[in-house]
């Protein structure tokens, strides 16, 4: 059994913020690539949300390391066996893509209409690898935790998927919270599917833990798990989206609940491996 | 070590450390060698790798027990019963080495018909005077004065038959009821060790403070000596009764007479009453037979070394300059005298009695009665700081304390004599810091300055001091010069003597310590510095490594390693043997040869008179199965002075000759109030009073606090949790410790009674980095009948939750 790495609040926030940025970005990119009329707005908002969030990430990581300059040691080499090494480079790449995507969003509006299409096409081209990077950023932290010898995490292959699904919902929530009109209603379906799917992955995850699942189900973390992750993060959003139709209020409520659930999920996963 | 001295002739480890690897069975009892002799313990492991069994007998399961093949627990203070049981087992089952016992020991000697043992007393006990009249403790003799013998060992008056009768009471059932050792476990140990009774097999016994700190310690060690003689384990490779000396140079300090009752080389200290003149001393102290007939040569040479030109034939070689003992100056007696206000000043070097002395409450109080106290130390110890200890008001203490900084052993050169009697020179590794000076420097300065102070004095009391030869240099003494004097020289040319065989009693030779003679055989040849090791697969005699006293012999009494005809009992472990063809310098044939220096006259043939007497330092040359000590000529079990149970072997509860001190602070505990047996011991991580080790953070980290080990059963009874604080209390005082509740201590079932025992390491005190109470606040001023060593291995306490 490995020792406790004492990964702190900074890491919880990074997991959350990074997931949100990744989610927002790949949703934006997918919207950019495949969306219909309203989706360009989703893309624009997504790109816009992703960049600042992803720029916060290295700050959080650096705070956790304690000494700013040492963050750069991450880039001494690229080590494929180390999810953290690959993740660091991916984070760098993802930040770059987020930056360019956002620049291109802004550029699309500034340039002459005849060149706007070119800009959009360039942005769409970038969205393909960008999406892949987004998925990577959303999931590598889960893979990283699996590649340890801590309780709950060690050897577990389901944290990555859990984080991806959760990144989708928090990413969507971040976009949904953006004050813009007219609104995009496709999120209702998105939320319904993701929450349902997340519940399924969560089940598989707990199943894979065997007896260790008790930390979530019955241990001291149980209230938070049942209340925040299952209740606020999955059940309520699902029910709201299923039964309450239309209106900004339910939409906002859903988004907030999803964020709470997403944060709690990451917090609990991080804590359970360090208890 | 009179226990060995009376039995074999010399009071020293019979074998040496490396030789332990030659044993077929190793019995570690009364010692915790793995913890207290960790470096040397590798030889025990080496023996095990060669197939030896390791047996550990200890009240608690120690780090030594952890490595042992067999472990048996016993209640502290009952070792004589246990060993007596083993002797009985060996005799009853005819497991002893018949020829060895018959030929090499006094088993066949006939005892005075009046001699006997009854109700716990040997004949001659005087209940009024509380002492023995030893008139009957002797052999029947032939016309020529030699003891009468019965080679068949059948005569009821033989030592052998007395031994058989005496120990017949020590049955396995008795062992169980006295020691608390389950019968089966006792028998397993007894059987395993008794196997070494076969000719050619060797078993070693390793003991230390677990045996010596008892009111009948000397007899305890005698019991082991008897067992080993019965099994033919003395004088052979891998055998012996091996006293594991404590510090690296304890053997050296005993050899050099750091005890009040001897002079260097185990020459008895003269007393005013018995030895008014040199002639009286020599007459009284020189036996008629055995090697000690040479004592006058050693004694006169010593006087010649000390008093030089002032020692002449006409003035009894300055014998009158030698101080004479008029009282007992052993450790506890000194402190009792100090406590009674009879001592003015006290110089302490390399000791911390405020923590190491028994009944430390009394001993710390005693220090308050001094006018002055000099402490030469590395650290400010509890002794140096006694005036600020717990419960002491510094304003009320008048003692003037001088604390002088001392260098450490690593900061000076000199020789060490290890447990195996090897003198090894060591070199200085670093300079001492600041004003720190070596102890040699201090002694040298003290002598030189006193000489300067007394110079010209005509007072008779100063004359002895002025007459002392003292020429070892001005600052640091030249230690090789000292060693050369210790080795001895012919006065005329100041040439070193080759060995003590060249010493004379006419004043022509001088010698500071006869047993060390030969360490410096020629100018500039310091054999303590020789470093030639034997190959690892050899017996490990290592004759070329260091110098072993006497005359570089490695295994004492090695004549006994060969059978009466001079052939080794075990060819593979042959030490010496008789070579009838070997030629002597004078052309005659036949001598003792081998890998070790014979502990025997080299030309004395096996069939010559005395040719089968291996114990040359004893008057009759035979191993002393029967050998008088203060409390009797055979060992007998008595309970410790503080004991929770009645002695089952006789109505005599404790050793009738035990020394019990009686000052107001010398209280003994009532078993009703203090029903739990306690013992004290050491930990690998600390050294003694901890002056050094409790100042070293790495060691403090490993063993930070005083603790008290106890069984789960006792802890449950008292509601004590592992790791929780407890108070341990005796009639003398109480200490605060942390409970170590463990399966390594078990309650002792004595018949239908259960007796608990607890154990406390004694390394803590009120100074240093890691402070704690001293275990010696609990121990009594009770001493062994012969040596007066304190009984700190078995006393009574009570334990409660703090």
């Amino acid at each position, binding site marked *: 059994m490995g020792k406790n790495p004492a990964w702190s609040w900074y890491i919880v926030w990074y997991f959350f913020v990074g997931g949100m940025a990744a989610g927002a970005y790949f949703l934006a990119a997918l919207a950019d690539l495949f969306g219909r009329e309203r989706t360009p707005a989703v893309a624009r908002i997504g790109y816009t949300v992703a960049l600042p969030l992803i720029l916060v990430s290295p700050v959080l990581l650096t705070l956790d390391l304690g000494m700013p300059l040492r963050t750069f040691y991450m880039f001494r080499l690229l080590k494929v066996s180390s999810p953290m090494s690959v993740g660091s480079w991916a984070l760098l790449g993802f930040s770059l893509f987020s930056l360019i995507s956002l620049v291109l969003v802004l550029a699309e509006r500034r340039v002459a209409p005849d060149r706007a299409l070119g800009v959009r096409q360039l942005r769409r081209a970038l969205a393909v690898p960008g999406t892949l990077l987004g998925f990577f950023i959303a999931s590598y932290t889960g893979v990283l935790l699996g590649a340890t010898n801590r309780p709950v995490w060690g050897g577990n292959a389901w944290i990555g998927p859990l984080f991806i699904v959760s990144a989708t919902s928090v990413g969507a929530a971040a976009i949904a919270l953006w004050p813009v009109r007219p609104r995009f209603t496709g999120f209702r379906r998105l939320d319904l599917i993701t929450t349902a799917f997340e519940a399924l992955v969560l089940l598989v995850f707990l199943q894979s833990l065997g007896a260790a699942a008790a930390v979530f189900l019955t241990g001291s973390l149980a209230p938070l798990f049942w209340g925040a992750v299952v209740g606020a993060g999955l059940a309520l959003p699902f029910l709201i989206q299923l039964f309450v139709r239309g209106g900004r209020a339910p939409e906002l409520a859903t988004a907030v609940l999803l964020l709470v659930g997403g944060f709690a999920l990451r917090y609990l996963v991080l804590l359970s491996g360090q208890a | 070590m009179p226990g060995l001295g009376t039995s074999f002739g010399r009071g020293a480890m019979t074998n040496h450390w490396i030789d332990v690897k030659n044993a077929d069975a190793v019995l570690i009892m009364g010692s915790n060698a793995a913890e207290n002799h960790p470096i040397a313990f590798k030889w025990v492991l080496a023996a095990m790798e060669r197939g030896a069994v390791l047996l550990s007998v200890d009240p608690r399961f120690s780090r030594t027990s952890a*490595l042992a093949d067999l472990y048996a627990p016993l209640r502290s203070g009952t070792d004589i019963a246990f060993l007596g049981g083993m002797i009985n087992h060996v005799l009853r089952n005819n497991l002893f080495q018949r020829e060895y016992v018959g030929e090499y020991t006094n088993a066949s000697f006939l005892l005075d018909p009046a001699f006997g043992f009854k109700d716990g007393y040997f004949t001659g006990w005087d209940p009024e005077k509380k002492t023995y009249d030893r008139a009957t403790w002797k052999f029947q003799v032939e016309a020529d004065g030699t003891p009468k013998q019965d080679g068949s060992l059948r005569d009821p008056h033989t030592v052998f038959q007395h031994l058989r009768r005496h120990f017949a009471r020590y049955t396995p059932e008795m062992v169980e009821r006295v020691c608390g050792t389950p019968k089966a476990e006792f028998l397993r140990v007894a059987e395993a060790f008794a196997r070494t009774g076969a000719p050619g097999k060797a078993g070693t016994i390793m003991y230390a403070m677990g045996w010596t700190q008892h009111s009948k310690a000397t007899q305890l060690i005698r019991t082991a000596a008897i067992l080993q003689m019965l099994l033919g384990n003395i004088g052979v490779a891998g055998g012996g009764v091996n006293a594991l000396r404590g510090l690296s140079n304890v053997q050296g300090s005993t050899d050099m007479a750091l005890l009040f009752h001897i002079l260097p080389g185990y020459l008895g200290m003269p007393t005013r009453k018995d030895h008014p003149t040199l002639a009286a001393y020599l007459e009284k102290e020189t036996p008629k037979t055995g090697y000690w007939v040479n004592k006058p040569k050693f004694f006169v040479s010593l006087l010649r070394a000390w008093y030089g030109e002032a020692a002449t034939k006409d003035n009894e070689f300055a014998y009158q300059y030698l101080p004479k003992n008029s009282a007992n100056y052993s450790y506890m007696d000194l402190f009792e005298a100090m406590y009674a206000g009879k001592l003015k000043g006290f110089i302490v070097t390399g000791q911390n009695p405020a923590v190491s002395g028994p009944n430390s409450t009394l001993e710390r109080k005693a220090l308050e009665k001094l006018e002055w106290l000099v402490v030469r130390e590395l650290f400010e110890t509890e002794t140096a700081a006694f005036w600020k200890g717990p419960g002491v008001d510094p304003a009320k203490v008048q003692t003037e304390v001088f604390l002088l900084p001392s260098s450490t052993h690593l900061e000076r050169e000199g020789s060490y004599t290890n447990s195996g009697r090897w003198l090894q020179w060591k070199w200085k590794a670093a300079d001492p810091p600041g004003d720190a000076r070596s102890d040699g420097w201090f002694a040298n300065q003290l002598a030189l300055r006193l000489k300067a102070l007394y110079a010209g004095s005509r007072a008779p009391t100063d004359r002895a001091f002025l007459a002392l030869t003292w020429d070892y240099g001005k600052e640091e003494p030249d230690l090789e010069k000292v060693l050369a004097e210790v080795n001895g020289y012919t006065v005329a040319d100041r040439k070193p003597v080759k060995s003590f065989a060249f010493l004379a009693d006419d004043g022509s030779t001088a010698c500071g310590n006869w047993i060390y003679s030969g360490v410096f055989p020629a100018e500039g040849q310091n054999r303590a510095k020789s470093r030639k090791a034997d190959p690892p697969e050899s017996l490990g005699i290592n004759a070329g490594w260091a110098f072993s006293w006497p005359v570089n012999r490695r295994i004492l009494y090695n004549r006994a390693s060969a059978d009466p005809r001079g052939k080794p009992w075990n060819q593979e472990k042959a030490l010496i043997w008789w070579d009838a063809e070997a030629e002597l310098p004078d052309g005659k044939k036949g001598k003792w040869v081998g890998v070790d220096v014979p502990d025997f006259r080299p030309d004395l043939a096996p069939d010559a008179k005395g040719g089968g007497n291996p114990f040359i330092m004893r008057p009759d040359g035979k191993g002393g199965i029967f050998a008088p000590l203060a409390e009797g000529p055979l060992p007998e079990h008595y309970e410790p002075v503080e004991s929770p149970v009645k002695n089952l072997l006789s109505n005599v509860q404790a050793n009738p000759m035990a020394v019990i001190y009686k000052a107001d602070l010398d209280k003994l505990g009532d078993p009703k109030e203090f029903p739990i047996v306690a013992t004290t011991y050491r930990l690998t991580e600390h050294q003694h009073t901890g002056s050094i080790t409790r100042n070293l*953070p790495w060691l403090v*980290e490993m063993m930070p606090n005083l603790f008290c080990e106890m069984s789960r059963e006792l802890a449950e009874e008292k509601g004590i949790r592992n790791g929780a604080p407890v108070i341990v209390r005796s009639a003398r005082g109480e200490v605060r410790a942390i409970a170590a509740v463990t*399966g390594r201590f078990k309650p002792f079932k004595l018949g239908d009674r259960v007796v608990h025992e607890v154990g406390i390491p004694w390394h803590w005190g009120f100074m240093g980095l890691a402070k704690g109470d001293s275990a010696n606040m609990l121990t009594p001023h009770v001493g062994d009948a012969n040596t007066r060593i304190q009984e700190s291995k078995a006393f009574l306490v009570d334990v409660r939750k703090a």
Partner: protein
Amino acid sequence: MAKAILVDTSKCIACRGCQVACKQWHGRRAEPTRFQGSYENPLALSAQTWRRVGFIETAGGDGRLRWRFISDACKHCTDASCLAVCPTGALFRRTWGAVDLNQDICNGCRYCVAACPFGIVAFNEESGRVNKCVLCPDRVEAGLEPACVTTCPTDALTFGDRDQLLSQAKRRVAELQAKGEKGAQLYGERELSGLHQLFVLQERPQVYGLPEQPRFAVASVFPSSVTSVLASVVMGVTALVAFRGRGGKGEE
């Protein structure tokens, strides 16, 4: 030639010379401790304590009390989780097997801390970096034995060519078994493709707190990646469904 330390627990007398020798050679400090009811202290390996002796009271199959000792430090695994996950290259392999640590490069991410299956690597709050036993390359490459091995009085620790130590260990296990020590076994020959600290144990590894089957932490990277890719695909499709479905047109 791969080197290793062989820890023969059956010869260990728990003198803890190794524990202190390591501290001395590597300038490690003493930690504040309190006696907790066992001789063991400190209670775990840390940045200041790279080797530690465990004291284990246990009853063998025969119910007899045993006091087992184990001198424990980094195993210098062939499949070294710490090294595999280290993103900076601070942890690196010496040609002769040691998993060494370059303090200058370590950024204090603590991934190795969580990854090591034996709980060896420890974070040093003061330096903000991690520490662990490095197998004394400064000594070994100068022809000396590691400090702990040099100190061990009983040869419970030996250092040498791994192959030789393996056969030495096997002989010893056979010897112990022949003596009736049924629990005697070798640990580290195959575990994690071979450890460079081998153990002759007298009981099951668990008794000493050693995992029966230590896991190479990064072994899960591949399956985790597969599940993550699958989840990504599902989420991608979900997004498509959302974006191309009816609601995709905008507000209803």
